[in-house]
């Protein structure tokens, strides 16, 4: 699995600045993705960033959330929050994501598979 191009050309300091204000685990997950990319680290990175966009009333750790968890119904992410998270991942990872593409994703597994596909990687 290749390192996302946008991530590869950024220094660790630039990544940390891009994610200024995000919880340290989210920043660490993105930094570790740069140094050693594998599907597990990509999944951790996606979920830790996604966690930041959960509505206040539904705030929780997503570390152990299963692939079957539904983005809207189970995690309470509305379409704008999901689009925001995708836009942030686009900024940080340099993986182009269109709002309408995110709108078609239903579960955590779908999200992971989508980004893996963008990285030409096997989600399993």
């Amino acid at each position, binding site marked *: 699995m290749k390192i996302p191009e946008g991530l590869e050309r950024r220094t660790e300091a630039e990544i940390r600045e891009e*994610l*200024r*204000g*995000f919880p340290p685990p989210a920043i660490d997950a993105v930094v570790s993705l740069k140094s050693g990319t594998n599907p597990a680290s990509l999944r951790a990175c996606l979920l830790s960033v996604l966690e*930041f*966009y959960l*509505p*206040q009333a539904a*705030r929780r750790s997503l570390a152990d959330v299963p692939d079957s968890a539904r983005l809207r119904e189970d995690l309470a992410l509305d379409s*704008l929050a999901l*689009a*925001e998270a995708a*836009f*942030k991942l*686009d900024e940080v990872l340099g993986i*182009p*994501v*269109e*709002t309408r593409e995110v709108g078609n994703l239903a579960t955590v597994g779908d999200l992971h598979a989508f980004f893996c596909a963008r990285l030409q990687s096997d989600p399993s």
Partner: protein
Amino acid sequence: MNDVVVTGVGLVSSLGTNAADALDAMRHLRTGLVPWHPLPDTNLPVTIAGPIPGFDVSGLDAASWSWPDHLPIDRSVLRGMPPHGLYAMAALTEAMAQANLAPDACRDGRTGLYAASGGSPRLTFRRLAAMENNAWQRGHPLGVISSVAGTLNFHFAAILGIRGESCGFVSACASSAHAIGYAADSIRLGRQDRIVVIGAEDLCLESVMPFHGMGALTTGSDPALAMRPFDRDRSGFAATGGAAVLILESSSSARRRHVTPLARLAGWGQAADGYHPAAPHPQGIGLADAINLALADAQSSPADVDYINAHGTGTPAGDAAEALALSRIFNSSCPPISSTKALTGHGLSLAGAMEAVLSILALRHAIIPGQAHLTHPLPEGAHLNFPRLTTSHPIRSALNNSSGFGGANVVHLFTHA
């Protein structure tokens, strides 16, 4: 008609993070203007401004913003806000507490929200540049609601759960003054029991530097002398950001809630110059008319005014026009006049609401703020009364002048409740 009172105010300014900080600064004529170098390696022609102490909104994303620890602000509500939304959140918290309003008290349909800001030129510019770079394929999902001129009313109507009136005002540096005036009218007519008025602006290159193209900004480098309202040698304004919030309420509503009003908005007036899109009428005819209309609305006369918080931006044309307008109305017996912008900097759309708060503070605490940084009064105001120092003196009423592009002029008259 209903009487309109002010039951709460909040102020985040270059003078500090609350109204008490600003009051202290007015008492001691302490300026919030400081050397300003947002691009350290660039030789900017403008080097003085009034940043907000204790806040950092330099990042584009609310995730990166910081604020003083004592302010209880939930970061999640800031998502999609413009940078000055953070200032507004802090000022709103202060005003709601003073008005003894719980966060859910505005959901009653009898509470409205009027807001004013120029939007966020910085977010507009940066978000559009990013879209241009990706061939207009992708844009930030909250790019519109975080940057256009109505951004404050979008966000705060949702945060407060407003079911009554919600509207934004755009008349440049008279915007938030207009918001206060129209809020008063709505309460007087019985359409709303109370209206939350918010004025806020961001201090950033994208908001400020376009004014340099007009020659409106001072290029002086001494914070104590750069912005000199009503001085013969004035050279323009220094910019600032921040937020001011006023809770306007019918006196009957305040009585029902057992809240002691801070002041009464006895009247307001507005009149345009009908002259030029940017420059004021040289004789200040619109401002003079607005003052007369405000006095008439309050059933007051010039002799009833004990303090005038002038618009006074320190621009050559603006101050001269205002001085002539004031000379015409307060010719024989001029009350003390000062522009507190010499302390705060010019807050653009925020200015009218910020100076309404400062006028109310002067009224309540019986001080007449001095005119900071004034050495040689301008010839057009030779007979006007510009005290150089702040003095303790009871005030019956305070007049608050605001003027904006397009020759818009708005004047409030505040009295004791």
